[in-house]
């Protein structure tokens, strides 16, 4: 992360290291009851500082559940989850991560800037500092002119950018993202992917990203983690070292090779299951 880039963005952040360690995690819903579901079994996952990891797999493979375990929105039935060396619950209370969901989830009754200020309000940051930080982040996601607009005045893509800005408000070193671009059209999606890469490169953020889309996973990540359902488990780690991402990346042969590699891994699962679950788009 170059000095000039961070200065240009106006974001005077210290790079916050963030690591995630999942060991032997199980997640069983409705244990002991007739509708018991084993969402995850024996998950081991290590995410290094600054790494961008995608979770991909057919429906029911537990990728969203795994994300929520890391974020301590759920408690695992077995195993340990460590974020930055602390238990996941501690990490949540310390706001060590920011989360983005498939719906932007902005509050209609607040302006864009006030939406971004929400995490800071909860931490008791004072008004002036909050406002300054919100404006900084708006510049970062290139929505500087929209500070006092209302969420419904923004397009879907813009709302998601605000949601990402909100997720970065407390300077977390880790971003957890659950198909944030799923509801957007293809072109907006590609644009948002490029933006996300840029922001994470500047801030050195660690990211765990859940997606249905193979090209998206390959474009964004350093590593694609392939999961399969029934019970949910990790079947493959695929390194995606194809250099810095830019506009040409999507047309490079290595890009397509990696996509094929991921697709093959998923087809393997498909064969075992006999069904479809992932986008080839």
């Amino acid at each position, binding site marked *: 992360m170059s000095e000039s880039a961070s200065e240009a963005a106006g974001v005077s952040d210290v790079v916050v290291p963030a690591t995630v360690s999942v060991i032997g995690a199980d997640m069983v819903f409705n244990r002991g009851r007739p509708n018991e579901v084993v969402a995850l079994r024996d998950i081991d996952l290590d995410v290094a500082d600054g790494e961008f990891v995608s979770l991909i797999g057919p429906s029911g493979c537990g990728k969203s559940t795994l994300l929520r375990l890391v*974020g301590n*929105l759920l408690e695992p039935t077995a195993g340990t989850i460590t974020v930055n060396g602390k238990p996941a619950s501690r990490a949540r209370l*310390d706001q060590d991560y920011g989360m983005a*969901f498939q*719906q932007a*989830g902005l509050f*209609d*009754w607040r302006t864009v800037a006030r939406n971004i200020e*929400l995490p800071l309000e*909860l931490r008791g940051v004072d008004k002036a500092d909050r406002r300054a930080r919100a404006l900084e982040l708006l510049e970062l996601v290139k929505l500087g002119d929209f500070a006092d607009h209302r969420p419904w005045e923004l397009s879907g893509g813009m709302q998601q950018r605000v949601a990402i800005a909100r997720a970065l408000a407390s300077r977390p070193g880790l971003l957890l993202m659950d198909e944030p671009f799923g509801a957007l059209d293809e072109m907006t999606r590609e644009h948002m992917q490029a933006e996300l890469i840029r922001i994470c490169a500047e801030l050195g953020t660690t990211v765990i990203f859940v997606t249905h889309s193979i090209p998206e996973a390959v474009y964004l990540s350093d590593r694609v983690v392939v999961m399969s359902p029934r019970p949910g488990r990790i079947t493959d780690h695929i390194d995606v070292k194809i250099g810095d991402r830019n506009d040409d990346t999507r047309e490079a042969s290595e890009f397509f090779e990696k996509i094929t590699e991921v697709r093959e891994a998923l087809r393997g699962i498909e064969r075992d299951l006999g069904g479809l679950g992932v986008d080839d788009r």
Partner: protein
Amino acid sequence: MSRSAPTPRSDRIASVVAPIVLGIAFLALWQWFVVARDIKPFLLPKPTAIWSEFWDSFANIRKATRVTATNAFFGLVAGSIGGAVTALVANRFRRVGEMLTPLAAAANAIPIVALAAIFGRMFDSTTETPRRLVVLLVVFFPVFINVLRGLREVEPVHLELMRSLAASPTAVSRRVRLPNAIPFFLTGLRVASALCVIAALVSEYFVGQQNGLGPKIAGAAKGSSNYPLAWAFVVAACALGVAFYLVAILLERVALPWRRGPSR
């Protein structure tokens, strides 16, 4: 069946013109019908007769309207505040909510105005208190149900977000549930504003002095057999009901520019 899309501008004009035209046509038809068939005024007076009677007796009409309107207003304000506060309590203490919700559902089915008779005994029936209590009750339940819904029916993504931000339950209430409940409160208020005038009027039939619009209508009809006057009072009552409702709608429009909230 193909549909041609009307231009937005002609659409908007039609939305305003069509009801006006219909209203005028209706009144014209009414007038013609009474005159042509020589209908006796005690059955159906002419619109023109009602109009002139309205202005002749304007002072009386205004006095009676004031009585009904203040009763409706008092009951509306007290009932809304009561309903909203009770909903906050019911949201905070589950047991309270569980006890009150079936009662509120039952209240929907019960003719609350019948309680006016009991209130007329409990309180001095020469005061407006029994009537205002009836309005209060009629207003209370829709507001209570709506506000409680608003506090509870929060979007799951908002709750997940707050949890991911390690927000305390108080913070969630303050920053999510309460703002979320405001559109619901205004919806309840809208429903209540339509009901409060009717409740005020109806309670006048059950109890109290001969001073509101309700008894005046009955007095003009039965007592002095002045049917145009009775209808003039009816017009005032209708106008009052519409006025309350329009104010509530205006409030909703102003406070909720994003037109959120459930439709009832």
